[in-house]
């Protein structure tokens, strides 16, 4: 019994990580209908960025990420403004091709720069610290922080979307791009800000990716898959849905692993397929889309 309860708790915590992977993707799709195939690689890229900042300046990763966030915001803003805005239009193929190309460029650029060695973000004792819950169950501090950060990110994104002028512009442009322009909204700038914001979320996802496990330049695509599954399980366009989707995926994986360690990944994908069969629009779809 304890083992199952433990699997449930660890699954929810793992879900926090997947929700962080997915939040940026959800934001990009929600605002500019951009399907970003380089998302996983961008998370890995950000993890390397945090690693470099942390080692060069001798900083703890938790401090290094604070420096990495504004840098990544600017990179995201520039990427959207210079490159991705040109790919958006009625045709869905150009952004897919361009982000797919980006994915290959990032992977190979990282391989060239950092080699294929596994890396890890080091933060001392906190990495292995845990809080005993009694009954032989304990939760790791880092997994717990991951989930809390995911919730904080979702709360903040919801606040930005529903309580600020820029958020209204995000929703207006996603609702009707042409009319938003007639209202004085410069969509290219709005999209660039949205991408900058997504990159800030990517930085936070990268922090926990690097703290919880080893990473190397080739693991991006698998993270992309988890992120996609979380977004689609949750329902397109809802941040809370994305969090729920991440948790469903995390739960399925840990429960699968509990049955048989080899089933972890498979169980996640099966849960995804099961949701698609039962609720093709996800668990919490936006009213109309």
């Amino acid at each position, binding site marked *: 019994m304890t083992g199952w309860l433990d699997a449930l708790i660890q699954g929810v915590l793992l879900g926090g990580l997947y929700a962080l992977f997915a939040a940026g993707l959800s934001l990009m799709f929600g605002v500019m209908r951009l399907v970003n195939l380089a998302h996983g690689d961008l998370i890995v890229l950000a993890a390397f960025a945090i690693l470099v900042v942390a080692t060069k300046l001798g900083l703890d990763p938790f401090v290094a990420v604070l420096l990495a966030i504004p840098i990544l915001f600017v990179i995201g803003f520039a990427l959207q403004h210079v490159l991705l805005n040109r790919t958006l239009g009625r045709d869905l193929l150009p952004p897919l091709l361009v982000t797919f190309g980006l994915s290959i460029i990032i992977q190979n650029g990282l391989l060239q720069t950092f080699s294929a060695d596994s890396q890890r973000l080091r933060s001392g004792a906190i990495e292995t610290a845990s809080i005993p819950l009694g009954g032989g169950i304990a939760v790791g501090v880092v997994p717990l922080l991951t989930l809390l950060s995911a919730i904080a990110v979702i709360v903040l994104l919801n606040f930005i979307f529903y309580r600020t*002028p820029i958020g*209204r512009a995000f929703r207006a442009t996603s*609702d009707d791009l042409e009319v*938003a*322009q*007639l209202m*004085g909204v*410069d969509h290219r700038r709005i999209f660039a800000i949205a991408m900058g914001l997504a990159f800030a979320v990517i930085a936070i996802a990268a922090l926990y990716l690097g703290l919880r496990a080893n990473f190397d330049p080739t693991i991006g695509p698998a993270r992309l898959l988890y992120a996609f599954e979380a977004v689609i399980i949750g329902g397109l366009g809802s941040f809370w849905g994305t969090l729920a989707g991440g948790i469903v995926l995390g739960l399925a994986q840990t429960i699968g692993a509990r049955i048989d360690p080899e089933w972890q990944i498979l169980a996640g994908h099966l849960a995804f397929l099961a949701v698609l069969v039962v609720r093709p629009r996800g668990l919490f779809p936006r009213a109309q889309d």
Partner: protein
Amino acid sequence: MLLEVAGLRKSFGSIVVADDLDLVVAPGEAVGIIGPNGAGKTTLFNLIAGGLMPTAGAIRFDGRDLLGVAPPARCRAGIGRTHQIPQPFEKLTVFENLLVGAVYGRQKSEREVAQSCGEILERLGLLRRANVLAGSLTLLERKRLEMARALATTPRLLLLDEIAGGLTEGECLELVATIRGIRQTGVAILWIEHVVHALLAVIDRLVVLNFGRKIAEGVPKEVMQRPDVHQIYIGIEA
């Protein structure tokens, strides 16, 4: 002149939708445009608001050449437009719809514009619907929102595209009163309309388009008497 359109031409391949068109609107003036379907009326609005680029010719607003000026900048310069089929941001509330126009169209903070947005809603009879999602409005309310949102950007020229279509007689009269009220605040109006009596109740000058060309212009009553216009007008009413 507030708006000057000179020698405007737009063609899609061999189809000419605006043919050597000249048009001026003075500050505060109300000009009506009629013409059969396919006469190039909505295209003209798209060219003025910036959704389409002309093949040839010039559009000046307040003396400034609009060639190469993107739609958001045209909005900020003072051009507001409504659509024949209202296109509210359906997932935003009515009030938020106005806030978007006011904040981005005027480059002001939300605090500065909130009150004037409320006043516009009150003037257009939408105040009690301020916090419902725009997607749940009725047709008349959507048309009012379309105007309210354009007004929130504080235009000096308001482009109205068949705003009276599909309304009952009573609703139409209300709308005419509202548009007169907007005029009194000094906003110039360029109004495309098939409901000619509503149009004539507001405008100073009438322009008739057919196949992308201007075929008549002048005092509304006189223009309507012209045989060639009369024929088209009959065609519209039929």
